[in-house]
């Protein structure tokens, strides 16, 4: 057994690095399934991160902090909805605007909280179970959001593929005109999907500022929102694969941190490039097969819906 003890902390840190990506990725997946491409994930995560952090430091109530983070993300997504769904603005440009706005607004809101410490999200501790060597801390010693992320993936899979509401959502994403002519409210459904995506991105952001690195810093998401977007392409729009991808990226992030700590003779910055380079490589490998993307991507993604009648 001894000699392998380092594995447990590594797995634990991989989980914390992956969880924000799971939340943001699954949320955006639902948005995209409804036919909307929201490139503002990074901005929504930042707003969630700052809102969650501020709430936690002021009230000390972490449950409330996560709720507020989800709310902040959803409000941002609602703004995106007003522009793209009601005012029919270009989704790519609006998503970029949402990110730029989120970067600025979160920096402004978090100004007086930079460098303030906060207790990390508390972890589950079941006497007996959490102390089992190896599996104990991994299975029974996580914080609530990690468990929630697993429930979320299972729930979204079930919702999308096993419920009528999920079928309607996918129909809206694949053929908004057909869905509209049957009488479904395309815009209404998309608003809900977009705001769900925003709320999940908000929680993903809050996980960064409350658990992964319990503090607030400007731009602390460092591109994770964009990596989450890439994960969805990687996963060919399947919830389970988004989770696999998120853990892969969590693994790469942690691996490079450990390699830096181990003092490899490579400059630390080169190792820090790895998650970004991996994103590019993964994108290339998946996108190469164009027919596969076309088969799985929601057919109406990024298209503006304006009912003729």
């Amino acid at each position, binding site marked *: 057994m001894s000699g392998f003890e380092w594995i447990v902390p590594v797995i634990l840190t991989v989980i914390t690095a992956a969880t924000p990506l799971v939340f943001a990725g699954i949320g955006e997946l639902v948005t995209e399934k409804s036919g909307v491409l929201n490139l503002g994930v990074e901005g929504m995560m930042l707003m969630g991160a700052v809102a969650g952090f501020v709430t936690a430091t002021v009230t000390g109530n972490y449950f409330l902090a996560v709720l507020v983070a989800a709310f902040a993300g959803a409000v941002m997504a609602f703004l995106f909805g007003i522009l793209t769904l009601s005012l029919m603005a270009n989704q790519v440009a609006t998503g970029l*605007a949402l990110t730029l706005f989120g970067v600025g607004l979160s920096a*402004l809101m978090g100004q007086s909280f930079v460098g303030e410490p906060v207790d990390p999200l508390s972890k589950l501790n079941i006497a007996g179970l959490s102390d089992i060597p190896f599996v104990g801390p991994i299975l029974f010693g996580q914080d609530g959001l990690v468990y929630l992320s697993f429930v979320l993936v299972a729930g979204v899979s079930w919702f999308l593929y096993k419920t009528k509401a999920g079928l309607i959502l996918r129909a809206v994403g694949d053929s908004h005109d057909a869905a509209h002519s049957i009488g479904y409210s395309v815009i209404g459904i998309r608003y809900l999907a977009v705001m769900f995506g925003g709320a999940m991105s908000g929680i993903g952001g809050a996980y960064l500022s409350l658990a992964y690195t319990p503090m607030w810093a400007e731009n602390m998401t460092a591109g994770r929102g964009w990596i989450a977007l890439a994960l969805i392409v990687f996963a060919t729009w399947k919830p389970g694969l988004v989770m696999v991808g998120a853990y892969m990226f969590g693994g790469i992030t942690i691996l490079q941190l450990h390699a830096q700590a181990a003092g490899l003779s490579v400059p630390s*910055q080169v190792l820090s490039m790895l998650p*970004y380079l991996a994103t*590019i490589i993964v994108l*290339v490998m998946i996108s190469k097969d*164009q027919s596969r993307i076309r088969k799985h991507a929601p057919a109406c993604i990024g298209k503006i819906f304006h009912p003729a009648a």
Partner: protein
Amino acid sequence: MLLKIEKRSEPSKVMVYMTPIIALVLTILTSIVLFELLGVNPMEALYQFFIAPLDTEYEFSELFVKATPLILCAIGLSVCFRANVWNIGAEGQLTMGAIVGSSLFIYFPETDSFLMLPAMIILGAVGGAAWAAIPAFLKTRFNANEILTSLMLVYVAILVLSVLVHGHWRDPSGFNFPESRTFSESADMPILVSGTRMHFGTVLALLAVLGAWIMMSKTLIGFQVKVIGAAPVAGAYAGFSQKKIIWFTLVFGGAMAGVAGLSEVSGPIDQVLPSISPGYGFTAIIVAFLGRLHPVGIFFASLLMALTYLGGETAQINLGLPVAVTGVFQGMVLFFLLASDVLVNYRFRLNTVRKAVS
């Protein structure tokens, strides 16, 4: 619904020019609320933001110092966006241009030649273009989304810069600070007006405005860019290669951003630092849209965004407002612009009697 959105038969020409103004008015109205929330007198804040920075001749020249990289980046981006190529990695291309361009001085610091600066500018363009060629290659060869690849490369470029500045580009007599040696005179951008920091880069930016204008309105390649962007199928029937346009726009955009980066390090910064841009490459996205993707529009939009940088600094010094206000302000402009752009293609109608008639 009481209001109905109706598609116009043709996009409104008037609205194309009106919406940036509408967006600005809405931004200013919203920021009055924002300033109120931050506990600052809104009129005072607006004065500090938009009027005070232009008080003196020196500050007026600073407007051009800040606008120069914005113009260059936004001109490049506008050509990409016209072709529906979503290059959002100008910040990385700017960084790479600065690295490649200044490498000439870093490795040959003693060289004293009038060719030094021109060579550095060309290398800057090459560096930026090469960095943008990566997403172009990945897009045309592997169909990889250029939005994500160009953005990921921003982080990579900034880390490359960090490796160099913390590594062997460090000034040997610089007390181990992560800074390169300061540029020699032959590697410096000449100052245009003595007593200011206005430099030759501004001339390059103005040339870019003129060049891009001619290119987009008078040349075949400019026409192809517009056709591929507006109607790719029609472009394909006309025999225009979409791949060629992707390559051209990205390389052009990268080269412009590269020149912007080089003109920053050999202009106002005068050495290579770990951070060489306060996000010019991202703000340039806003500039490109606000300028209606038109070179002349971009020129004016750049001056306005440059003013928000200066105004942010002034407001910080005089009112203690956080610098982040600038970012919020810039984001809001783009938001309101995209929102009011609905008026270009659609019109609002009261949803009343007409229904019965039709």
